[in-house]
């Protein structure tokens, strides 16, 4: 188990290193010059060269990368080229709402996916099965921005149940926070639940055919315990992997969802930074995103090993 975790950590570090290279290279490849944008109307050749030197952009690309990486390893993402703010601070401030949204969406998604997947599997080919699986495909295939707008139209404009936009940290004001988080979390969570419900259904159907389920029934385990304990414990193993794989997609979906609901998160920060060629902020946000996805996948692998004794013990 410890060797397994260590080898996964080593892989994670390699992935992060490669990701940092790609992020850095891509940012320098897209056209546009931040120095020009910063100077605007104040442009003179002298001022341009001066500012370029001050920002370190006159050094070689390799030098810039090494310099950046060394600072990143010390936890310093640099300063924003445009705003007078530390990148780490900007990223952190944007990161918290995004992560809150993603976690809330995960919770909403699992809360919808587990019961509907279980019901569909238990009553295979019934109206319940068709209904919940039809719903799953429906919510999965609707794009987040469209679903968000529809939800706003129904629940904010017409019913006036939930606010249409804004973000308040739930730990600052629990009710107001959750209130404002509800529609975005449903928008993003239903996307996730559609996929997970289908996987739980097929995985559970397979598990319910296994001999150990028949054996458990033969020893007197009742139906509910059979499904929710004996079968689900096995059926959730592939689901954990899916959660990890989908975490990246969830972050991507969060960016769109934030835009619809005007949440000051990573999405807004990244898009604005790209538009302004704010290299250090873009690098910071993408690196933070990559770091999170890789970290979650590491956590998922460890959880997977924990859930699956065959990996844990071997």
């Amino acid at each position, binding site marked *: 188990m410890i060797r397994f975790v260590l080898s996964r950590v080593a892989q994670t570090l390699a992935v992060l290193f490669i990701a940092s290279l790609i992020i850095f290279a891509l940012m320098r490849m897209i056209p546009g010059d931040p120095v020009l944008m910063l100077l605007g109307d104040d442009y003179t050749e002298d001022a341009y060269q001066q500012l370029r030197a001050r920002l370190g952009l006159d050094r070689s690309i390799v030098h810039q990368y090494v310099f950046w990486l060394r600072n990143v390893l010390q936890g310093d993402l640099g300063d924003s080229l445009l705003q007078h703010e530390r990148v780490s601070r900007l990223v952190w401030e944007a990161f918290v709402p995004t992560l809150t949204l993603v976690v809330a969406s995960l919770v909403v998604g699992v809360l919808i996916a587990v019961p509907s997947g279980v019901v569909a599997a238990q009553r295979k080919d019934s109206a319940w099965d068709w209904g919940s699986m039809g719903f799953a495909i429906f919510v999965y295939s609707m794009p987040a921005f469209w679903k968000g707008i529809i939800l706003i139209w129904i629940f904010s404009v017409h019913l006036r149940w939930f606010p249409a936009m804004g973000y308040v940290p739930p730990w600052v004001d629990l009710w107001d926070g959750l209130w404002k988080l509800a529609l975005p979390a449903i928008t993003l969570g239903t996307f996730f639940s559609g996929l997970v419900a289908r996987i739980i259904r097929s995985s559970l159907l397979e598990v319910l055919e*296994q001999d150990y389920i*028949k054996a458990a029934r*033969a020893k*007197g*385990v*009742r139906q509910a315990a059979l499904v929710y304990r004996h079968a689900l*414990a096995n059926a959730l193993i592939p689901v954990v992997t899916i959660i990890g794989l989908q975490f990246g997609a969830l972050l991507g979906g969060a960016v769109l969802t934030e835009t619809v609901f005007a949440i000051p998160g990573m999405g807004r920060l990244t898009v604005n930074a790209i538009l302004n060629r704010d290299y250090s902020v873009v690098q910071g946000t993408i690196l933070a995103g990559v770091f999170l996805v890789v970290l979650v996948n590491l956590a998922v692998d460890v959880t997977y090993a924990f859930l699956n*004794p*065959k990996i844990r*013990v071997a």
Partner: protein
Amino acid sequence: MTAETILDVRDLTVDFHLDGTVLRAVDGISLSVRRGEIVGLVGESGAGKSLTSEAILRLIRCPPGRITGEVRFRGRNLLDLDEDALSRIRGREIAMIFQNPAGSLNPVFRVGAQLHEAMALHLDEPRPALRARVVDILARVGIPAPRTRARDYPHQFSGGMAQRVMVGMGMSCVPALLIADEPTTALDVTIQAQVLALIRQLARETGAAVLLVSHDLGIISQMCDRVIVMYAGRIVEQASIATVFGAPAHPYTRALVDCLPRVDGVERLGTIGGVMPGLRALPPGCRFHPRCPIAEPRCSVDVPALRALTPDHRAACHLARPGA
């Protein structure tokens, strides 16, 4: 032979409703098991033995399955009980073990926990007592270092060890009947003997009756007091071990016995020509007649009833005579 009858199956039929057709996999069989007795249920693959044993505990998914008839266990018809009442009998009064021991244990739970669960479901005993009994049972079924092994997961057990655990689990609540469905088919020959000996020993100690399902007449002959022979969903013969081997009345039983190798024999082993008919193409009359060496014209028309030749010997053959 005056012991109380604990299991009395009457006219048990298992149908499967598939794509608009009805397949009758078990066709009106009746059998009984008395206290402390070991009864063998023998037949080729597909004869309906496993379905019969699963139908007794209603482990067949219905629909598409449908079970009719009566399964009287200590006077109560199990087919009339609701799921809740049934789950109090499963594992407590009737235990069952299966063909695939490695697959019978849930891979994500510790072996000890699964044993513990089996007892916790039915016995009203405090946790520490049950935990101690888990280790006791593992020791009794011959698992070395039972205390450590209880914390292992099923994949760390060999097939033979897993089946010994299953036997121990089956007997943990001291059931009146153990149904063993091909318990040694998946195991090596040397391990087979150990597991069979364990089943016999535990059954003797607890006074449990055993219904042993097997396709292997050799195993049946070592273990059982009585044999029930099934062919294509019906019982063709029912008799004591001595009668089945000494004076089988049904030509199918005779053919099965001839297929067994004998220590003193120099003759070639017998085989049965042809294959058992599938459920979609059952022949009329006696289902064995296409393969039967002594079939007469009426065998392909009339269904032979299961007739008593002596009080303890029944056969379903038009040509059967006592002692024939």
